[in-house]
């Protein structure tokens, strides 16, 4: 079975540019969350989407946005990139927000974004 897949694996962008990161959840999972992990730190929660709706948002500026598609895949968009946006972006999927017994989150390998 395929796990959570993220693309691309690595990306280099210039300050001020825009970037789109993609995530495909495990088959059957309807919930997708995004995390930012700056080098040397733990992951920080950015967004959670369930059934194509935003259900949770972390403390990130409006330059960060996301969406979820009918097939439950998701995109994270970041506008006007800053040097500080350089990080590993992790996607996690789980079965669904309403099923508390099955809330284990499975993480992808992440997209490593470098802003120069």
């Amino acid at each position, binding site marked *: 079975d395929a796990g959570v897949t993220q693309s691309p694996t690595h990306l280099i962008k210039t300050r001020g540019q825009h970037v789109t990161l993609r995530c495909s959840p495990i088959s059957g999972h309807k919930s997708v969350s995004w995390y930012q992990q700056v080098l040397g730190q*733990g992951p920080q929660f950015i967004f959670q989407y369930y059934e194509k709706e935003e259900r949770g948002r972390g403390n990130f500026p409006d330059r960060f946005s996301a969406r979820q598609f009918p097939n439950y895949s998701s995109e994270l968009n970041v506008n006007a990139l800053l040097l500080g946006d350089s990080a590993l972006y992790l996607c*996690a999927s789980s079965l669904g927000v309403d099923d508390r017994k099955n809330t284990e989150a499975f993480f992808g390998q992440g997209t490593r974004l470098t802003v120069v």
Partner: protein
Amino acid sequence: AQKVTQAQTEISVVEKEDVTLDCVYETRDTTYYLFWYKQPPSGELVFLIRRNSFDEQNEISGRYSWNFQKSTSSFNFTITASQVVDSAVYFCALSSEQFLRFNKFYFGSGTKLNVKP
């Protein structure tokens, strides 16, 4: 406020030594969940264990064991007879009853474990 502190930034041990990774948490919630994740160099976070605040029983799984103590707000992780393959960054994480539904975890800063042959 939710906060997780992993005071040990990096630990180096020789293979077969036992090692304990410390985790201290802060929360005002009465119901909460604690987790340990392993992050190998490939980047993905690998789930190791989840405990809820009502279950203070210590748990052992093979070479891994966890010591949950509410009195000291700690959830420590011990690897017995460490192996080179245990080398990774280990994260302790916290979630509340409210945020678990959103897959919203508060992670510590991680402890890098180096196991040398």
